[in-house]
């Protein structure tokens, strides 16, 4: 929905991930929910805002609110866990997940005998 709204209004200066949806009172609306879940009245007005605007000659280390980063980390991890059995069959072994890093061991189960482990640290 956000991507379509931005396209229709010509807002191409920042990608869809950099926008957030709020009600008139400023409450953030979850983008994971269906519109029907909110039970909006017919005359509701929603506001699509940028998460931040930044200017200057440097890029700071952290643009995103740490709480937002943490929430995204937890969401990605939950989605991974839901598919973990499939990942394991492919040889992906998640051995540790502590914000903001995930440690995954990549094996090659199709080899006989199984061999070749590579450990990857994936910072979020």
């Amino acid at each position, binding site marked *: 929905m956000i991507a379509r709204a*931005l396209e229709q*209004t*010509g*807002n*191409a*200066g*920042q990608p869809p991930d*950099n926008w*957030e949806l*709020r009600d*008139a009172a*400023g409450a953030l609306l979850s983008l994971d929910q269906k519109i029907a879940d909110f039970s909006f009245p017919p005359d509701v*007005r929603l*506001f*699509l*805002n*940028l*998460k*931040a*605007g*930044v*200017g*200057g*000659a*440097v*890029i*700071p280390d952290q*643009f995103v609110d740490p709480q937002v980063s943490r929430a995204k980390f937890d969401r990605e991890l939950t989605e991974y866990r839901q598919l973990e059995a499939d990942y394991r069959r492919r040889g992906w072994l998640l051995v540790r997940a502590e914000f903001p890093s995930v440690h995954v061991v990549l094996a090659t189960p199709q080899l006989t005998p199984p061999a070749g482990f590579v450990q990857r640290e994936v910072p979020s």
Partner: protein
Amino acid sequence: MTLAQVEQFQVPAKIVRQTEETLRAAGAKGCEAFVLWSGRQNGPLFNILTVHVPKQNAYCLSSGLCVRVDGDELHRLNVWLYEADEILAIQIHAHPDEAYHSETDDTYPILATLVAFQSSQRSFAALVSSHLQPPYTVSRQMVGPSSKPISFG
């Protein structure tokens, strides 16, 4: 009607003065600052009506300066613009020395409509001031092939 169709921006002198004062005040503290202009479009003419100095955080980092406006303030501004029937047209900020658009400026603009995006890429006048080191200068000119005049009156 979109901002891309605007051929001329009319800016009251009072708003220019307010803008320069804000940028100078921030510069005197060694900081950068954001100033925004909004108004109403009448065909190819855009009348600037309001100057906004959003709540912002300026950072002095070892690698340079930057300034950030957070989502809560951008929401407040968005609601104000809707209720006032104005649209955001120009984003102005200061750099400590040379006037140019940095990678940060181009990546995280507050004004994200197409005309702003094009402008940040190459041609739009941003009134970027060099305020931390003398001489103080303010650019008031457009550059590039798609330049649009700004009237100060």
